[in-house]
């Protein structure tokens, strides 16, 4: 039996159940009949915003322009352990690249890909443009472009008749006087339209109207300033908001500002302050753990990830990070338990099976290794993942001394991803064993140019060049290897030999 319901109520109910498209459709109908229905207008605005909403705390895309044209750098040579830009300056406890691979910016590879894992300060423009293999997409040119713009245009497509709200025709000062509309409108402008400047205008007028007493507007002002790259101003707003009312989000935003300003210690203190107020808050604990991880202080990071698990034992990031830490500290059996836990929790993707396969291999559970990789291959989503899985299979093949298989695996890996520097390196070693010096050298050079942050290709090239008597190239390559990994003993030895040799000449 058909029963009639108030359309606005139905839309409101749909909104609560997160059926935003239906909600927006009903609101459009209401607005056709009565274009000045503020309630419907507001509800539709909210629905459109929610469709594209991304938590601003997690959004952290540092564009090339921001990074390279950063003028707010204070100390180029920061004291050890006080900067995120000098990743090598860990105070002990950090793993060496020989044990745990590094990312392009020189941090140990983390167990969980999140937007900020590709941040870090590249030294050169060339490095900045290059897409790190661990990140899925290229870095946008500026943070104003990139994902936000794409979201904006996507929302245009859903409304073929044009945007829902014409920002240029809005009288912002009128709306800022209406506290029941302005917040919704702000979120729409900020998240849906991604028009930070108008959002900032609205927020500035609204906070004035609220007599600077509404902490929420201050947080929004801070968000706008952050997007515009005015970090000091945004810090001021967040601080002021915290004075009014302490909210978890404000702590997170402020810590994000400090990380962007390269003040990890301040960010850590802030997180701890936040934890005093909100004990056991998972997001704050995760924030601390991430900073420790980025500063190469893996021991502390693991401690905090464990704290996270005490609060929320289903936290995927914490489980994955602890698992990968165990894997890289030579405890594959324990890592295996963590990954199995993830599997039981319903994480079902290529990466997990890949990691399971590796753990099984190192834990000498050979029967599971290949079937895990088989599943990983069945689950790959893109070519990069496929290349990584084949690379790891090749690695296992090297481990069981099936060099033909290894050779083919590395070749496959390169077929899927032409920029796989690790595969080039290993292929070079295999080629060298076959006695094909030229091929090997070419692969090593390719690997070195693709991933200058890895020390292996440099060191291999140095050893190879030294063997065939090209001492100059050997020396240059050894120096690069030393830059990438200063503590590497074999490189030191090689350099010493070479220097002695040159002195003799």
């Amino acid at each position, binding site marked *: *039996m058909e029963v009639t319901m108030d359309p606005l*109520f139905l839309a*409101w*109910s749909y909104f*609560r159940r*997160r059926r935003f498209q239906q909600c927006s459709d009903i609101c459009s109908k209401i607005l056709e009949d009565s274009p000045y229905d503020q*309630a419907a207008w*507001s509800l539709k605005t909210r629905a459109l915003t*929610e469709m594209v909403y991304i938590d601003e705390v*997690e959004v952290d895309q540092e564009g090339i322009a921001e990074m390279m044209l950063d003028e707010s750098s204070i100390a180029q040579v920061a004291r050890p352990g006080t900067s995120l830009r000098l990743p090598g300056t860990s105070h002990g406890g950090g793993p060496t690249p020989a044990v745990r691979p590094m990312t392009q910016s020189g941090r140990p590879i983390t167990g969980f*890909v999140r937007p900020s894992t590709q941040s870090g300060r590249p030294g050169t423009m060339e490095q900045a443009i290059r897409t790190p293999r661990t990140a*899925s997409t290229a870095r946008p040119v500026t943070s104003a472009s990139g994902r936000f713009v794409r979201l904006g245009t996507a929302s245009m497509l859903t409304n073929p008749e044009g945007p829902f709200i014409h920002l240029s025709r809005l009288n912002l000062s009128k709306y800022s006087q209406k*506290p*029941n*509309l302005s917040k*919704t409108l702000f979120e729409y402008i900020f998240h849906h339209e991604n028009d930070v400047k108008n959002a900032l205008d609205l927020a500035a007028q609204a906070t004035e109207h609220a007599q600077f007493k509404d*902490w*929420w507007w201050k*947080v929004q002002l801070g968000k706008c300033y952050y997007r515009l790259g005015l970090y000091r101003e945004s810090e001021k707003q967040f601080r002021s908001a915290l004075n009014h*009312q302490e*909210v978890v*989000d404000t702590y997170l935003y402020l810590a994000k500002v400090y990380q962007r300003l390269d003040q990890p210690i301040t960010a850590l203190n802030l997180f701890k302050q936040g934890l005093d107020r*909100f004990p*056991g*808050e998972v997001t704050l604990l995760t924030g601390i753990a991430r900073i420790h991880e980025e500063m190469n202080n893996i021991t502390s990071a693991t401690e905090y990830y464990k704290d996270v698990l005490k609060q929320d*034992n*289903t936290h995927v*990031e914490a489980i994955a990070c602890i698992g*990968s830490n165990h894997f890289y500290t030579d405890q594959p059996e324990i890592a295996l338990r963590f990954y199995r836990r993830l599997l*039981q929790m319903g994480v079902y*993707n290529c*990466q*997990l099976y*890949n*990691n399971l396969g590796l753990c099984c291999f190192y834990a000498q559970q050979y029967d599971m290794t290949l*079937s895990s990789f*088989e*599943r990983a291959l069945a689950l790959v989503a893109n070519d*990069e*993942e496929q290349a*990584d899985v084949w*690379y790891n299979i090749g*690695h296992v093949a*090297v481990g069981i001394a099936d060099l033909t298989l290894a050779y083919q695996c590395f*070749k496959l890996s390169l077929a899927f991803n032409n920029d796989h520097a690790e595969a080039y*390196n*290993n292929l070079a070693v295999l080629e*060298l*064993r*076959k*006695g094909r010096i030229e*091929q090997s050298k070419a692969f090593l050079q390719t690997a070195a140019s693709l991933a200058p942050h890895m020390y*292996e290709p440099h*060191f291999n090239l140095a*050893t*190879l060049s030294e063997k*065939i*008597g090209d001492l100059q190239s050997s020396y240059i390559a050894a120096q690069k290897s030393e830059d990438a990994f200063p503590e590497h003993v*074999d490189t030191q030895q*090689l350099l010493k030999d070479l220097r002695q040799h040159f002195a003799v000449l």
Partner: protein
Amino acid sequence: MSLFKARDWWSATLGEGEEFDQGCLCVGDVDNSGTGHDKVVVGSYMGMLRVLSPHSSKAGEGPQSQADHQLLEVQLPHPIIQVEVGKFVSCSDQLHLAVLHPRKLSVYAVSGTAGNVEHGAQYQLKLVYEHNLQRTACNMTSGPFGGVTGHHSVCIQSMDGMLMFFEQESYSFGRFLPGFLLPGPLAYCPRTDNFLTVSSTRQLESYRYETLAVATEAESRQDPELPLKTGGKRLTPDWTVILGEAALDLSVPSFSHASSSICVLGERNLYCFRDNGQIRFMKKLEYNPSCFLPYASVTEGTTNLLLGNHNNMLLVYQDVTLKWAAQLACVPVAVRVANFSELRGVLVTLSSEGHLQCSYLGTDPSFFSTPKVDAREVNYEQLDAEMKTLQRFIREATRTQDILPKADTEEALTVTTTVSSSMDTPSQALIQDIDGLSVPSVTVKVKVKSSCVLQGSKLTISVSSPLAVSQDQFTLEPMGVGSSTVVAFSAFLNGHYPPADLTGDIALSYSSPTELNPKGVPRVHQSRFDLPLALVCMSTSPAKSAKHKITVDTNKPPVNLTAVFPEFYEKSEESDGNSLAVQFLSGARVTVLASKTSQRYRVQSESFEDMWLVIKELVQRFEHHFIKQGVKDIRHSFTAPLPLPEYFQTVDHHFQLRVSAQHYQDLLAERAVQFRAIQRRMLTRFKDKTPAPLQNLDTLLDATYHQLMALADAAEENRLLLEQAFVRLRSSTHLLVLLLCLWQGLAPDQTNILEATLLPLLQDTPTLGWEESCDAAVSHLLRSCLSRSPKDQATSLAQSTGPMLGLPADTSRLKKHITLLCDRLGKGGRLTLASEANVQVPVQVQTLVRPGGVEPIAEAAGDTEDPPLAQDAAKFIKKKQPSKKAKKGLVQ
């Protein structure tokens, strides 16, 4: 993400295509059975009202038992947006059911009569009273408003922000909320007698019931434009807290009398406030919540709550700590805790589509099970066959294509050089005649034939001085596949002394574009050509006697020189075939005499170095001649003592010129200093304000200038002489090397070493000259492979760090060393670079000499004491894991 799923105790799907939301579920002992067991009341947007009493189904019961669980199902004429159980009827302690329709509030009594037959009890719904509403209702809350005990009042919030209060059967009053836009959740706090809502301004607002009661009457404010009536007060909230987000649900659990807390489920955060608006705790949610229910306080001061989210999860929190996470079958829109006859504390969840589930927490693994990989039935024979085919393909592929392009086996182009057999007429030479002899020139044609596309080709020709060519650089047009280009140029003598070498080098640089690289890969092709001897000399009459004589023996019968040197016999009439004489254009006359009986040839000349070209030509032509005749084992030898004194004369001459060049350099420097000093002094004179006499400084300057110029001229002359001397030195060194080879019959590899030792430089420079570099090389050979004993080798090599190379004081040391070298060679010394103690430099040389020599390195590294390559091979291979997780959003 959860390890376990909620264990299903009882579940039902209500209706088809019906919609449910937050308010549509409530539990309570609605039929007042008195047992304390709850019934589940569900109303749908389609107007269906159901009362259910779930109990665990026994095995063997069919769909009939399902009907047994459903106590009541009524189709009401209006949509049901909320159901509540409470004491809504005055003068009755019984629980009644309040059903909120958009425009009506109805209160029903549910009663059951025990049946006599097996089918069980019969239930009835009886309308007690109803209120028609003026405005569209949105939600309602009930409670003992105003602190009355015993029965519950109802407060309904309308879609346009009016709160309507009903005391059982009567309507008491209505109030508009200030600043209203969209309705938020509504709750009543009995302890403080406050109404709580989250308004569109995104703040939690608390209104006292008393304030509401005395505020302006809503009905009188229909038109907001009208000024307020004086009868009531303006409605202001008791307190507000800014949340900054809209709320999904609001609940005021009260577990103790001392305090009550207010729990707010926001869209992104969970808040808990004290009843005076102070924040107790908050938690940022990393997912989209759908519903929540604070249900108990297990320990003092904490609140336990259930929270459903849009990832089909039901989470149990104690304050902010996650205690349990369970997987549900669908997204819950409402959750309640109920006590049933068999089980207490059952979770009742309702989904938007009407899936009602009663479950409890248990350690059933989550029902996600990994799908099977499409495993094929293993047929080993078939697999083997497939494997073999694939292996064959792979092998084929690795042979034909690779990541790196294989070095081209066939050259992209061929360069053929033709030196014309006759001299040019007229001659192209720049110096037309030397000592009355006209200088000839010869045309060289270079033909470039390409087998692929060539771009930007440049051809460069180089001949050793004093030879010259008419044009030494050519830029070729881009060439297509199979096309060919010919360039021609003339070569001639351009100096007053014979050259040391008659070969010329051609270098062709080009780029061959590929598909991927349209600009082309730069490549270089090199080839050589030989100029005829007749270019620098001409035949003349033989001279009977000469200062220098060299005799070359062969092991074959003598040949007629006319056959070997046809071009020199064209003009001369007397051709006995036993003698040949050539006159170098700028040098001496060289005579070749062939013995009629023995297998000897004598070359004699007034000048030692000029014999080189002739002897070289002689040896080459003889070999050529005999190979043409099919004789293989032609061997030349040389027995006479080496002409070292003559050689050393050339060396001395060269050295003398170098010394004088040095001398001129010093003198020039000295004069230049003097010149500048005079200039400086004159300048100060001229700049002086009070002019002083020049004191003949100008004369001095003039004289010094002349001296400078004269010195420079002399130095330039010396340089030319030095160049000439070096060419002579090269000639004679070549001759010496040739003679040494002939003398000892050295193999080609040893000849190469010897040549590299004695002729280390192609050009003399003031800083590094031939003498010192040759001396260094010779002494190294003497110390290493030609030393007397291996023990010596070791000791001498250890102290081999010599001083810097520089112009030696005299040549005696060099001469001594060269003599010693010849001596040792004569005693059977063997030139080799692979001596045992040799570890440093020779590896380089060896690779240069024998390109195949690098092959065994990889193996050698494996079994010698120097293992980095082999040992580290495993280590280099990075343990590398790809991104562990994709984005967070993907995995949750």
